[in-house]
């Protein structure tokens, strides 16, 4: 088993290229803004954005917390609804034939068109954002879990049957574990789009949150504040993605080809 030091070194080696590229890009950005003397309201340099984050930490923190809550509640809602729906779809052919087309159709309606309606129906509070987050992020979960439950090897199913397994046992002990990698892949995609969903919801109408903050800051040419919000939002998405990635690593450690 590799030592803690070596594991850390491997982790660093994995992250170093991406971190280097990001840092390089920021430096080029900083230099370009200074050399060409770009006005701050048009494009602030990264140092100015960093300064903005530190000086308005209290304000940004308050709105970040609002967005984080919407994202997390919506994400959990999407996961539970998505999994239940996927199990139903995988279990019943009739349900799949009748319901699945509408699950797909629900994604062809632009979320930006639904958002104002939700605002009318449930008001500008947290609920409308949670619904939008759930609407946008349940889809990758449903599709992946349905595929995953169907991915069970047919010979394995035959083996289970010769051992006297019931349908329910095959589901519990074969299909669910087979679907786990698919579920976690879906969860990773859902984590990223969940953040987008929250911002869209806040943009259309809200009393707080980073999306709302960006919307009121942009017309006032507080461009560095908009950028600060963008930085925080992308950090949020990345954190959620990495969290699910870590969960995946633990859950799939004995699955073949799980060295992701």
């Amino acid at each position, binding site marked *: 088993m590799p030592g803690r030091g070596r594991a850390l070194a491997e982790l660093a080696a994995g992250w170093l290229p991406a971190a280097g590229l990001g840092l390089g890009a920021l430096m080029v950005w900083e230099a370009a803004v200074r050399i060409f003397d770009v006005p701050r309201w048009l494009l602030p340099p990264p140092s100015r954005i960093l300064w903005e984050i530190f000086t308005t930490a209290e304000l940004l923190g308050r709105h970040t917390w609002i967005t984080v809550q919407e994202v997390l509640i919506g994400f959990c809602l999407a996961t539970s609804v998505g999994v239940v729906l996927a199990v139903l779809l995988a279990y019943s052919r009739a349900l799949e034939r009748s319901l699945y087309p509408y699950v797909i159709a629900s994604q062809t309606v632009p979320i930006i068109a639904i958002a104002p309606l939700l605002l009318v129906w449930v008001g500008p509070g947290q609920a409308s954002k949670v619904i939008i987050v759930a609407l946008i992020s349940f889809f990758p979960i449903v599709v992946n879990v349905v595929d995953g439950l169907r991915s069970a090897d047919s*010979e*394995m199913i035959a*083996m289970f*049957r*010769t*051992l*006297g397994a019931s349908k329910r046992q095959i589901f519990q002990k074969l299909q669910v*574990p087979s679907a786990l990698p698919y579920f976690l892949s879906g969860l990773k995609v859902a984590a990223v789009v969940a953040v987008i969903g929250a911002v869209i919801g806040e943009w259309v109408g809200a009393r707080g949150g980073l999306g709302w903050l960006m919307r009121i800051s942009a017309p006032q040419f507080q461009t560095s504040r908009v950028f600060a919000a963008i930085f925080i939002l992308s950090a949020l998405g990345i954190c959620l993605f990495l969290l699910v990635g870590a969960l995946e690593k633990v859950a799939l450690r*004995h*699955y073949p080809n799980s060295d992701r």
Partner: protein
Amino acid sequence: MPAQGSSSPATAEPASYRWGGARISQPALRASQAAGPTASGFTRLELNGVTKTYPARGRRPALDVISDASLLVSSGEFVSLIGPSGCGKSTLLNIVSGLEEPTSGVVALDGDPRAPRLGLVAHMHQRDLLLPWRTVLGNAVLGLELRHVAATEARARALALIARFGLDGFEDAYPAHLSGGMRQRVALLRTMLPQQDLIVLDEPFGALDAITRSGLQEWLGDVLETDRRTTLLVTHDVDEALLMSDRIYVMSKRPGSTVQSLQVPLARPRTREALSDPRVIDLRRQLMGLLAGKPGVVEA
């Protein structure tokens, strides 16, 4: 005290859940399994005029897989079924284990053509089909677990056999870390643990290298000597059939039918030396001839 899970044929008593004549229900089976390892009462398998046709589907025409298969495996007998690739051997085993039903013909266990087979006939595939997320022990107890045997008892029964299957020290290893031969032994342990009286083996060593294969063949012979079951082996390896069986059936090309049955005139278990016995050499020549369709012509 004898180890749990092992049973010797000498002391074998008729099991309480014999299915001779009567149909046995799934709960009855569970009750008997939960009560502990039952000594193998042997089962006689009879196939009479079995055919299998897959109906036409879309542009694919109907496919005759088995045209006329009849065979008998007596209680405790080891019978091999040998034939060219694609002659319907695997389909025949699927029919025996109840995964598929024949299009026509009779499959009878102990003379009862209506006896349920699915779940009562142990079936081992060429692929080991181990669950990658379970350890060696977790995979081995699967059959017991599906029959609702208590976890501690299932573990104890598996552990009692683990050394004989050459897996001691690997109880908590995951399949990804095992060699092909070991994985196949885990699969066999899983197949044998529920104590089903009739075992069908579908080219169990077909995917292994020659050295591992010959070691496992002799080993399986020993295992089945101490824990005797009625066994039907499908193979296309003539020496494997000669080494392990009491009797060998030869199947024709697709649509398969059983052509002839040949007795191997040596006691079991055998070592590889048996293969140089003049009687076995003669038998091999006959088998090769039958497989080729005509003596002296090599099957393409």
